[in-house]
Protein backbone atom coordinates (compact mmCIF):
# COMPACT_ATOMS: atom_id res chain seq x y z
CA UNK A 1 0.00 0.00 0.00
CA UNK A 2 1.17 3.54 -0.64
CA UNK A 3 -0.12 6.82 0.67
CA UNK A 4 -0.90 9.75 -1.57
CA UNK A 5 -1.90 13.30 -0.85
CA UNK A 6 -4.52 14.86 -3.11
CA UNK A 7 -4.44 18.64 -3.11
CA UNK A 8 -7.18 20.89 -4.37
CA UNK A 9 -6.23 24.51 -5.08
CA UNK A 10 -8.11 27.75 -4.78
CA UNK A 11 -5.40 29.32 -6.94
CA UNK A 12 -2.20 28.21 -8.61
CA UNK A 13 -3.41 25.12 -10.47
CA UNK A 14 -3.80 25.22 -14.27
CA UNK A 15 -7.27 26.44 -15.23
CA UNK A 16 -10.06 23.84 -15.09
CA UNK A 17 -12.11 23.10 -18.21
CA UNK A 18 -15.41 24.12 -16.58
CA UNK A 19 -13.92 27.11 -14.80
CA UNK A 20 -16.80 29.04 -13.24
CA UNK A 21 -16.50 30.33 -9.63
CA UNK A 22 -18.88 28.57 -7.27
CA UNK A 23 -20.94 31.65 -6.41
CA UNK A 24 -21.91 31.79 -10.12
CA UNK A 25 -23.43 28.29 -10.07
CA UNK A 26 -27.05 27.70 -9.19
CA UNK A 27 -27.80 26.58 -5.60
CA UNK A 28 -28.84 23.16 -6.99
CA UNK A 29 -25.49 22.77 -8.76
CA UNK A 30 -23.71 23.53 -5.48
CA UNK A 31 -25.78 20.89 -3.68
CA UNK A 32 -24.96 18.33 -6.38
CA UNK A 33 -21.25 19.12 -6.05
CA UNK A 34 -21.26 18.82 -2.25
CA UNK A 35 -23.11 15.51 -2.50
CA UNK A 36 -20.61 14.16 -5.04
CA UNK A 37 -17.68 15.01 -2.76
CA UNK A 38 -19.39 13.38 0.21
CA UNK A 39 -20.23 10.22 -1.77
CA UNK A 40 -16.64 10.04 -3.01
CA UNK A 41 -15.24 10.07 0.54
CA UNK A 42 -17.87 7.54 1.69
CA UNK A 43 -16.97 5.18 -1.15
CA UNK A 44 -13.26 5.38 -0.32
CA UNK A 45 -13.99 4.71 3.32
CA UNK A 46 -15.94 1.60 2.35
CA UNK A 47 -13.17 0.37 0.06
CA UNK A 48 -10.62 0.84 2.86
CA UNK A 49 -8.62 3.47 0.97
CA UNK A 50 -9.59 6.65 2.84
CA UNK A 51 -7.19 8.05 5.44
CA UNK A 52 -8.38 11.60 6.01
CA UNK A 53 -9.26 14.90 4.48
CA UNK A 54 -10.20 18.42 5.36
CA UNK A 55 -11.02 21.74 3.74
CA UNK A 56 -8.90 24.82 4.42
CA UNK A 57 -10.01 28.43 4.80
CA UNK A 58 -8.75 30.72 2.05
CA UNK A 59 -6.93 33.09 4.37
CA UNK A 60 -3.53 32.41 5.92
CA UNK A 61 -0.27 33.92 7.08
CA UNK A 62 3.46 33.43 6.50
CA UNK A 63 5.35 33.00 9.77
CA UNK A 64 9.06 32.74 10.53
CA UNK A 65 11.40 32.71 13.53
CA UNK A 66 12.99 36.10 14.14
CA UNK A 67 15.66 35.30 16.71
CA UNK A 68 15.92 34.65 20.43
CA UNK A 69 13.47 36.61 22.60
CA UNK A 70 11.66 38.12 19.64
CA UNK A 71 8.14 37.21 18.58
CA UNK A 72 7.89 35.42 15.23
CA UNK A 73 7.56 37.63 12.17
CA UNK A 74 4.26 37.29 10.36
CA UNK A 75 3.35 38.34 6.87
CA UNK A 76 -0.18 38.20 5.58
CA UNK A 77 -2.75 37.97 4.23
CA UNK A 78 -1.37 36.07 1.24
CA UNK A 79 -0.73 37.95 -1.98
CA UNK A 80 -3.29 37.39 -4.77
CA UNK A 81 -0.65 35.62 -6.85
CA UNK A 82 0.20 33.00 -4.26
CA UNK A 83 -0.59 29.36 -4.92
CA UNK A 84 -3.40 28.60 -2.46
CA UNK A 85 -4.51 25.18 -1.26
CA UNK A 86 -8.23 24.69 -0.70
CA UNK A 87 -8.22 21.23 0.81
CA UNK A 88 -6.45 17.94 1.12
CA UNK A 89 -7.29 14.26 1.15
CA UNK A 90 -4.99 11.40 2.01
CA UNK A 91 -5.61 8.00 0.40
CA UNK A 92 -3.88 4.69 0.95
CA UNK A 93 -3.95 2.65 -2.26
CA UNK A 94 -2.29 -0.32 -3.94
CA UNK A 95 -0.66 1.51 -6.79
CA UNK A 96 0.10 4.79 -8.48
CA UNK A 97 -2.42 3.82 -11.16
CA UNK A 98 -5.17 3.49 -8.56
CA UNK A 99 -4.25 6.90 -7.09
CA UNK A 100 -4.49 8.49 -10.54
CA UNK A 101 -7.83 6.79 -11.16
CA UNK A 102 -9.26 8.17 -7.90
CA UNK A 103 -7.89 11.67 -8.48
CA UNK A 104 -9.54 11.56 -11.91
CA UNK A 105 -12.87 10.66 -10.33
CA UNK A 106 -12.57 13.49 -7.85
CA UNK A 107 -11.77 15.92 -10.66
CA UNK A 108 -15.00 14.88 -12.38
CA UNK A 109 -17.09 16.44 -9.59
CA UNK A 110 -19.97 18.37 -11.19
CA UNK A 111 -19.83 22.17 -11.38
CA UNK A 112 -21.62 24.86 -13.39
CA UNK A 113 -24.34 23.44 -15.63
CA UNK A 114 -24.02 20.12 -13.81
CA UNK A 115 -20.99 19.36 -16.03
CA UNK A 116 -17.72 17.93 -14.64
CA UNK A 117 -15.27 20.64 -13.54
CA UNK A 118 -12.23 18.82 -14.96
CA UNK A 119 -10.30 20.51 -12.18
CA UNK A 120 -6.53 19.93 -11.95
CA UNK A 121 -5.70 18.17 -8.69
CA UNK A 122 -2.20 17.76 -7.35
CA UNK A 123 -1.23 14.14 -6.55
CA UNK A 124 1.78 13.69 -4.27
CA UNK A 125 3.23 10.40 -3.04
CA UNK A 126 4.27 10.25 0.62
CA UNK A 127 7.87 9.32 1.38
CA UNK A 128 7.62 6.00 3.18
CA UNK A 129 9.21 5.69 6.63
CA UNK A 130 12.42 3.70 6.89
CA UNK A 131 12.61 0.33 5.15
CA UNK A 132 12.65 -2.92 7.12
CA UNK A 133 15.05 -4.68 4.77
CA UNK A 134 18.51 -3.22 4.71
CA UNK A 135 20.33 -5.57 2.35
CA UNK A 136 20.65 -4.34 -1.15
CA UNK A 137 20.69 -7.26 -3.56
CA UNK A 138 21.79 -5.66 -6.76
Amino acid at each position, binding site marked *: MAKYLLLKHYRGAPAAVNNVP*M*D*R*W*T*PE*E*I*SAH*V*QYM*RDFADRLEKSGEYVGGE*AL*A*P*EGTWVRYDGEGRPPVTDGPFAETKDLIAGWMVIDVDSYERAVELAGELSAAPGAGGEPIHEWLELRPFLAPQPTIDECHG
Partner: protein
Amino acid sequence: MDEALLRSLTPSVIGVLVRRGADFAAAEDAVQEALIEALRVWPADPPRDPKGWLVTVAWRKFLDATRADAARRRREDLVEDQPPPGPAPATDDTLQLYFLCAHPSLTPASAVALTLRAVGGLTTRQIAEAYLVPEATMAQRISRAKRTVSGVRFDRPGDVATVLRVLYLVFNEGYSGDVDLAAEAIRLTRQLAAVIDHPEVSGLLALMLLHHARRAARTAPDGSLVPLAEQDRGLWDTALIAEGVAILQAALARDRLGEFQAQAAVAALHCDAPTAEETDWVQIVEWYDELVRLTDSPVVRLNRAVAVGEADGPRAGLAALAALDDSLPRHPAVAAYLHERDGDPRTAARLYAEAADRAPHLAERDHLTRQAARLNALLRRSAESASSAEDR
Protein backbone atom coordinates in the same frame (compact mmCIF):
# COMPACT_ATOMS: atom_id res chain seq x y z
CA MET B 1 -25.24 -2.55 29.44
CA ASP B 2 -26.27 0.79 30.88
CA GLU B 3 -23.38 2.99 29.82
CA ALA B 4 -25.19 6.13 31.00
CA LEU B 5 -25.40 4.70 34.53
CA LEU B 6 -21.73 3.74 34.43
CA ARG B 7 -20.80 7.25 33.36
CA SER B 8 -23.03 8.95 35.92
CA LEU B 9 -21.32 7.00 38.73
CA THR B 10 -17.84 8.21 37.73
CA PRO B 11 -17.58 11.42 39.78
CA SER B 12 -18.84 9.86 43.01
CA VAL B 13 -16.44 6.91 42.67
CA ILE B 14 -13.51 9.31 42.19
CA GLY B 15 -14.79 11.11 45.29
CA VAL B 16 -14.73 7.89 47.33
CA LEU B 17 -11.13 7.19 46.33
CA VAL B 18 -10.05 10.74 47.12
CA ARG B 19 -11.64 10.54 50.58
CA ARG B 20 -9.84 7.25 51.16
CA GLY B 21 -6.58 9.09 50.67
CA ALA B 22 -5.79 8.84 46.95
CA ASP B 23 -4.71 12.07 45.29
CA PHE B 24 -6.98 13.26 42.52
CA ALA B 25 -4.71 12.32 39.60
CA ALA B 26 -4.16 8.75 40.82
CA ALA B 27 -7.84 8.32 41.73
CA GLU B 28 -8.94 9.54 38.33
CA ASP B 29 -6.56 7.18 36.54
CA ALA B 30 -7.74 4.24 38.63
CA VAL B 31 -11.41 5.03 37.95
CA GLN B 32 -10.72 5.38 34.23
CA GLU B 33 -9.17 1.90 34.24
CA ALA B 34 -12.12 0.54 36.18
CA LEU B 35 -14.49 2.10 33.60
CA ILE B 36 -12.65 0.45 30.74
CA GLU B 37 -12.84 -2.87 32.56
CA ALA B 38 -16.55 -2.34 33.23
CA LEU B 39 -17.17 -1.70 29.53
CA ARG B 40 -15.46 -5.04 28.85
CA VAL B 41 -16.93 -7.17 31.64
CA TRP B 42 -20.41 -5.80 32.38
CA PRO B 43 -22.17 -6.76 29.13
CA ALA B 44 -21.65 -10.48 29.91
CA ASP B 45 -21.63 -10.24 33.68
CA PRO B 46 -23.50 -7.21 35.05
CA PRO B 47 -22.83 -6.52 38.74
CA ARG B 48 -25.66 -6.31 41.26
CA ASP B 49 -24.18 -3.20 42.84
CA PRO B 50 -22.57 -1.21 40.02
CA LYS B 51 -21.17 1.53 42.25
CA GLY B 52 -19.75 -0.97 44.75
CA TRP B 53 -18.16 -2.88 41.88
CA LEU B 54 -16.57 0.28 40.48
CA VAL B 55 -15.25 1.36 43.90
CA THR B 56 -13.73 -2.07 44.54
CA VAL B 57 -12.11 -2.38 41.13
CA ALA B 58 -10.89 1.23 41.06
CA TRP B 59 -9.45 0.93 44.57
CA ARG B 60 -7.61 -2.25 43.55
CA LYS B 61 -6.25 -0.49 40.46
CA PHE B 62 -5.16 2.40 42.65
CA LEU B 63 -3.36 0.09 45.08
CA ASP B 64 -1.68 -1.79 42.21
CA ALA B 65 -0.47 1.46 40.68
CA THR B 66 0.70 2.77 44.05
CA ARG B 67 2.59 -0.44 44.78
CA ALA B 68 4.21 -0.41 41.35
CA ASP B 69 5.17 3.20 41.91
CA ALA B 70 6.47 2.50 45.37
CA ALA B 71 8.49 -0.46 44.14
CA ARG B 72 10.03 1.73 41.51
CA ARG B 73 10.96 4.35 44.05
CA ARG B 74 11.96 1.70 46.61
CA ARG B 75 9.49 3.00 49.11
CA GLU B 76 7.20 0.49 50.72
CA ASP B 77 5.54 2.69 53.30
CA LEU B 78 2.32 3.42 51.43
CA VAL B 79 -1.24 2.63 52.29
CA GLU B 80 -2.11 -1.03 52.35
CA ASP B 81 -5.32 -1.25 54.26
CA GLN B 82 -8.58 0.25 53.14
CA PRO B 83 -9.19 3.38 55.16
CA PRO B 84 -12.78 3.87 56.26
CA PRO B 85 -14.96 5.85 53.86
CA GLY B 86 -15.18 9.52 54.82
CA PRO B 87 -18.36 11.27 55.87
CA ALA B 88 -18.89 13.63 52.90
CA PRO B 89 -21.93 12.85 50.75
CA ALA B 90 -21.45 12.00 47.06
CA THR B 91 -23.15 15.17 45.82
CA ASP B 92 -20.36 17.31 47.29
CA ASP B 93 -17.76 15.13 45.60
CA THR B 94 -19.48 15.60 42.27
CA LEU B 95 -19.62 19.36 42.68
CA GLN B 96 -15.97 19.53 43.76
CA LEU B 97 -14.99 17.56 40.67
CA TYR B 98 -16.78 20.04 38.42
CA PHE B 99 -14.87 22.88 40.06
CA LEU B 100 -11.53 21.12 39.89
CA CYS B 101 -11.90 20.11 36.23
CA ALA B 102 -12.85 23.67 35.25
CA HIS B 103 -10.13 25.24 37.39
CA PRO B 104 -9.09 28.67 36.07
CA SER B 105 -5.45 27.53 35.79
CA LEU B 106 -6.48 25.14 32.97
CA THR B 107 -6.72 26.12 29.31
CA PRO B 108 -10.24 25.73 27.89
CA ALA B 109 -9.23 22.65 25.84
CA SER B 110 -7.72 20.97 28.90
CA ALA B 111 -10.68 21.81 31.12
CA VAL B 112 -13.06 20.37 28.54
CA ALA B 113 -11.07 17.13 28.20
CA LEU B 114 -10.67 16.67 31.94
CA THR B 115 -14.35 17.38 32.60
CA LEU B 116 -15.46 14.85 29.99
CA ARG B 117 -13.21 12.19 31.51
CA ALA B 118 -13.46 12.74 35.26
CA VAL B 119 -17.02 14.08 35.47
CA GLY B 120 -18.47 12.62 32.28
CA GLY B 121 -16.89 9.18 32.59
CA LEU B 122 -15.92 9.08 28.91
CA THR B 123 -12.83 7.12 27.95
CA THR B 124 -9.82 8.91 26.49
CA ARG B 125 -10.52 7.20 23.17
CA GLN B 126 -14.11 8.46 23.06
CA ILE B 127 -13.01 12.01 23.84
CA ALA B 128 -10.27 11.82 21.20
CA GLU B 129 -12.79 10.61 18.63
CA ALA B 130 -15.22 13.35 19.52
CA TYR B 131 -12.55 16.02 18.99
CA LEU B 132 -10.99 14.29 15.97
CA VAL B 133 -7.48 14.08 17.43
CA PRO B 134 -5.28 11.01 17.98
CA GLU B 135 -5.88 9.15 21.26
CA ALA B 136 -2.25 9.68 22.36
CA THR B 137 -2.66 13.45 21.94
CA MET B 138 -5.81 13.47 24.06
CA ALA B 139 -4.13 11.27 26.70
CA GLN B 140 -1.28 13.77 26.95
CA ARG B 141 -3.67 16.71 27.17
CA ILE B 142 -5.49 15.03 30.04
CA SER B 143 -2.37 14.09 31.99
CA ARG B 144 -0.95 17.61 31.60
CA ALA B 145 -4.25 18.99 32.86
CA LYS B 146 -4.08 16.70 35.88
CA ARG B 147 -0.55 17.86 36.67
CA THR B 148 -1.73 21.47 36.44
CA VAL B 149 -4.43 20.96 39.07
CA SER B 150 -2.38 18.58 41.25
CA GLY B 151 -1.76 21.27 43.87
CA VAL B 152 -5.38 22.40 44.04
CA ARG B 153 -7.23 21.53 47.24
CA PHE B 154 -10.17 19.26 46.55
CA ASP B 155 -12.35 20.72 49.28
CA ARG B 156 -12.35 24.38 48.23
CA PRO B 157 -15.44 25.83 46.60
CA GLY B 158 -14.86 26.99 43.05
CA ASP B 159 -16.50 29.44 40.70
CA VAL B 160 -19.62 28.10 39.04
CA ALA B 161 -19.16 30.53 36.12
CA THR B 162 -15.98 28.73 34.99
CA VAL B 163 -17.83 25.39 35.08
CA LEU B 164 -20.64 26.80 32.96
CA ARG B 165 -18.19 28.12 30.37
CA VAL B 166 -16.63 24.66 30.04
CA LEU B 167 -20.02 22.96 29.65
CA TYR B 168 -21.06 25.55 27.08
CA LEU B 169 -17.89 24.81 25.08
CA VAL B 170 -18.69 21.10 25.11
CA PHE B 171 -22.24 21.81 23.93
CA ASN B 172 -21.03 24.02 21.10
CA GLU B 173 -18.73 21.32 19.79
CA GLY B 174 -21.88 19.52 18.68
CA TYR B 175 -21.82 16.05 17.23
CA SER B 176 -19.07 15.58 14.68
CA GLY B 177 -17.63 12.36 16.11
CA ASP B 178 -19.14 9.18 17.50
CA VAL B 179 -19.96 10.74 20.86
CA ASP B 180 -22.82 13.21 20.88
CA LEU B 181 -21.14 16.04 22.79
CA ALA B 182 -24.27 18.20 22.78
CA ALA B 183 -26.23 15.46 24.53
CA GLU B 184 -23.31 14.84 26.88
CA ALA B 185 -23.16 18.55 27.77
CA ILE B 186 -26.88 18.47 28.58
CA ARG B 187 -26.41 15.41 30.79
CA LEU B 188 -23.54 17.06 32.66
CA THR B 189 -25.47 20.31 33.09
CA ARG B 190 -28.51 18.43 34.41
CA GLN B 191 -26.24 16.60 36.86
CA LEU B 192 -24.73 19.93 37.93
CA ALA B 193 -28.19 21.46 38.38
CA ALA B 194 -29.02 18.54 40.70
CA VAL B 195 -26.12 19.35 43.06
CA ILE B 196 -26.09 23.15 43.04
CA ASP B 197 -28.93 25.63 43.11
CA HIS B 198 -27.95 28.54 40.85
CA PRO B 199 -30.11 30.47 38.34
CA GLU B 200 -27.33 30.58 35.72
CA VAL B 201 -26.97 26.79 35.84
CA SER B 202 -30.70 26.65 35.10
CA GLY B 203 -30.20 29.31 32.43
CA LEU B 204 -27.53 27.27 30.67
CA LEU B 205 -29.55 24.07 30.92
CA ALA B 206 -32.59 25.85 29.45
CA LEU B 207 -30.44 27.33 26.67
CA MET B 208 -29.06 23.92 25.74
CA LEU B 209 -32.47 22.25 25.80
CA LEU B 210 -34.02 24.96 23.62
CA HIS B 211 -31.23 24.71 21.03
CA HIS B 212 -31.19 20.93 21.14
CA ALA B 213 -34.95 20.91 20.55
CA ARG B 214 -34.41 22.44 17.10
CA ARG B 215 -31.61 20.10 16.09
CA ALA B 216 -33.60 17.82 13.77
CA ALA B 217 -34.80 20.83 11.79
CA ARG B 218 -31.36 22.43 11.48
CA THR B 219 -29.99 20.10 8.79
CA ALA B 220 -31.59 19.09 5.50
CA PRO B 221 -31.46 15.41 4.43
CA ASP B 222 -28.50 16.25 2.14
CA GLY B 223 -26.55 17.62 5.13
CA SER B 224 -26.95 21.29 4.25
CA LEU B 225 -27.74 23.91 6.87
CA VAL B 226 -31.32 25.13 7.27
CA PRO B 227 -31.52 28.64 8.77
CA LEU B 228 -33.97 29.26 11.60
CA ALA B 229 -36.47 31.17 9.44
CA GLU B 230 -36.73 28.28 6.95
CA GLN B 231 -36.89 25.40 9.42
CA ASP B 232 -39.83 23.03 9.50
CA ARG B 233 -41.09 23.92 12.97
CA GLY B 234 -43.05 20.67 13.08
CA LEU B 235 -39.70 18.92 13.56
CA TRP B 236 -38.94 20.84 16.74
CA ASP B 237 -39.03 18.74 19.90
CA THR B 238 -41.95 20.22 21.84
CA ALA B 239 -41.21 18.24 25.03
CA LEU B 240 -37.68 19.65 25.22
CA ILE B 241 -39.00 23.14 24.50
CA ALA B 242 -41.60 22.84 27.29
CA GLU B 243 -38.95 21.63 29.71
CA GLY B 244 -36.51 24.38 28.72
CA VAL B 245 -39.13 27.09 29.04
CA ALA B 246 -40.25 25.83 32.47
CA ILE B 247 -36.67 25.74 33.77
CA LEU B 248 -36.02 29.21 32.36
CA GLN B 249 -39.18 30.70 33.87
CA ALA B 250 -38.32 29.33 37.32
CA ALA B 251 -34.82 30.80 37.01
CA LEU B 252 -36.02 34.22 35.80
CA ALA B 253 -38.51 34.40 38.66
CA ARG B 254 -35.57 34.56 41.08
CA ASP B 255 -34.57 37.89 39.61
CA ARG B 256 -30.86 37.22 39.34
CA LEU B 257 -30.39 37.64 35.62
CA GLY B 258 -27.22 36.38 33.93
CA GLU B 259 -26.07 35.94 30.36
CA PHE B 260 -27.17 32.32 29.98
CA GLN B 261 -30.69 33.13 31.18
CA ALA B 262 -30.86 36.04 28.75
CA GLN B 263 -29.61 33.90 25.85
CA ALA B 264 -32.11 31.21 26.79
CA ALA B 265 -34.85 33.86 26.78
CA VAL B 266 -33.98 34.72 23.17
CA ALA B 267 -34.01 31.01 22.25
CA ALA B 268 -37.36 30.60 24.02
CA LEU B 269 -38.91 33.46 22.03
CA HIS B 270 -37.83 31.77 18.78
CA CYS B 271 -39.24 28.44 19.97
CA ASP B 272 -42.47 30.15 20.96
CA ALA B 273 -43.21 31.49 17.45
CA PRO B 274 -45.49 29.18 15.39
CA THR B 275 -44.03 30.70 12.20
CA ALA B 276 -40.89 32.78 11.55
CA GLU B 277 -43.12 35.78 10.72
CA GLU B 278 -44.74 35.65 14.15
CA THR B 279 -41.42 35.93 16.01
CA ASP B 280 -41.53 38.61 18.71
CA TRP B 281 -38.46 40.51 17.51
CA VAL B 282 -39.20 43.54 19.69
CA GLN B 283 -38.83 41.42 22.82
CA ILE B 284 -35.76 39.72 21.37
CA VAL B 285 -34.11 43.13 20.90
CA GLU B 286 -34.88 43.90 24.54
CA TRP B 287 -33.14 40.69 25.63
CA TYR B 288 -30.16 41.56 23.46
CA ASP B 289 -30.05 44.95 25.18
CA GLU B 290 -29.82 43.07 28.49
CA LEU B 291 -27.08 40.88 27.05
CA VAL B 292 -25.09 43.89 25.85
CA ARG B 293 -25.40 45.31 29.36
CA LEU B 294 -24.29 42.00 30.93
CA THR B 295 -21.45 41.08 28.58
CA ASP B 296 -20.61 44.05 26.35
CA SER B 297 -19.64 41.44 23.75
CA PRO B 298 -19.25 42.50 20.09
CA VAL B 299 -20.76 39.16 19.02
CA VAL B 300 -23.88 39.97 21.03
CA ARG B 301 -24.03 43.40 19.36
CA LEU B 302 -23.83 41.69 15.97
CA ASN B 303 -26.76 39.42 16.84
CA ARG B 304 -28.59 42.42 18.17
CA ALA B 305 -28.17 44.14 14.78
CA VAL B 306 -29.96 41.20 13.13
CA ALA B 307 -32.81 41.45 15.63
CA VAL B 308 -33.05 45.24 15.15
CA GLY B 309 -33.21 44.62 11.40
CA GLU B 310 -36.22 42.37 11.95
CA ALA B 311 -37.93 44.56 14.53
CA ASP B 312 -37.38 48.01 12.99
CA GLY B 313 -36.49 47.23 9.38
CA PRO B 314 -33.22 46.55 7.52
CA ARG B 315 -32.11 50.21 7.53
CA ALA B 316 -32.19 50.26 11.32
CA GLY B 317 -30.29 46.95 11.34
CA LEU B 318 -27.64 48.33 8.99
CA ALA B 319 -27.31 51.43 11.18
CA ALA B 320 -26.71 49.21 14.23
CA LEU B 321 -24.21 47.20 12.21
CA ALA B 322 -22.33 50.32 11.07
CA ALA B 323 -21.13 50.87 14.63
CA LEU B 324 -19.39 47.47 14.69
CA ASP B 325 -15.96 46.36 13.53
CA ASP B 326 -16.35 44.63 10.15
CA SER B 327 -13.57 42.14 10.98
CA LEU B 328 -15.97 40.44 13.41
CA PRO B 329 -16.74 36.84 12.48
CA ARG B 330 -20.07 36.66 10.57
CA HIS B 331 -20.16 40.44 10.06
CA PRO B 332 -20.32 40.11 6.23
CA ALA B 333 -23.03 37.44 6.52
CA VAL B 334 -25.20 39.72 8.66
CA ALA B 335 -24.52 42.67 6.34
CA ALA B 336 -25.43 40.53 3.30
CA TYR B 337 -28.72 39.46 4.88
CA LEU B 338 -29.68 43.04 5.79
CA HIS B 339 -28.72 44.42 2.36
CA GLU B 340 -30.84 41.79 0.63
CA ARG B 341 -33.80 42.68 2.82
CA ASP B 342 -33.12 46.31 2.01
CA GLY B 343 -33.57 45.49 -1.70
CA ASP B 344 -29.92 45.56 -2.77
CA PRO B 345 -29.19 42.04 -4.09
CA ARG B 346 -25.98 43.10 -5.83
CA THR B 347 -24.28 44.23 -2.60
CA ALA B 348 -25.79 41.26 -0.76
CA ALA B 349 -24.38 38.76 -3.31
CA ARG B 350 -20.89 40.28 -3.01
CA LEU B 351 -21.07 40.19 0.80
CA TYR B 352 -22.37 36.60 0.85
CA ALA B 353 -19.39 35.52 -1.26
CA GLU B 354 -17.07 37.38 1.13
CA ALA B 355 -18.85 35.77 4.09
CA ALA B 356 -18.35 32.32 2.54
CA ASP B 357 -14.61 33.02 2.30
CA ARG B 358 -14.51 33.82 5.99
CA ALA B 359 -16.91 31.13 7.26
CA PRO B 360 -15.50 29.03 10.10
CA HIS B 361 -17.55 25.89 9.32
CA LEU B 362 -17.81 23.90 6.12
CA ALA B 363 -21.61 23.64 6.30
CA GLU B 364 -21.84 27.37 6.90
CA ARG B 365 -19.54 28.10 3.97
CA ASP B 366 -21.62 25.93 1.65
CA HIS B 367 -24.77 27.66 2.89
CA LEU B 368 -23.34 31.16 2.30
CA THR B 369 -22.01 30.19 -1.14
CA ARG B 370 -25.52 28.98 -2.01
CA GLN B 371 -26.95 32.32 -0.88
CA ALA B 372 -24.48 34.19 -3.12
CA ALA B 373 -25.31 31.80 -5.97
CA ARG B 374 -29.05 32.29 -5.47
CA LEU B 375 -28.74 36.09 -5.71
CA ASN B 376 -26.31 35.95 -8.65
CA ALA B 377 -28.77 33.72 -10.53
CA LEU B 378 -31.54 36.22 -9.74
CA LEU B 379 -29.42 39.12 -11.01
CA ARG B 380 -28.56 37.19 -14.20
CA ARG B 381 -32.23 36.53 -14.87
CA SER B 382 -33.24 40.14 -14.37
CA ALA B 383 -30.35 41.31 -16.58
CA GLU B 384 -31.48 38.87 -19.29
CA SER B 385 -35.09 39.96 -19.15
CA ALA B 386 -34.01 43.63 -19.22
CA SER B 387 -31.89 43.07 -22.33
CA SER B 388 -34.61 41.03 -24.07
CA ALA B 389 -37.03 43.87 -23.29
CA GLU B 390 -34.61 46.28 -25.01
CA ASP B 391 -34.37 43.96 -28.02
CA ARG B 392 -38.09 44.11 -28.53
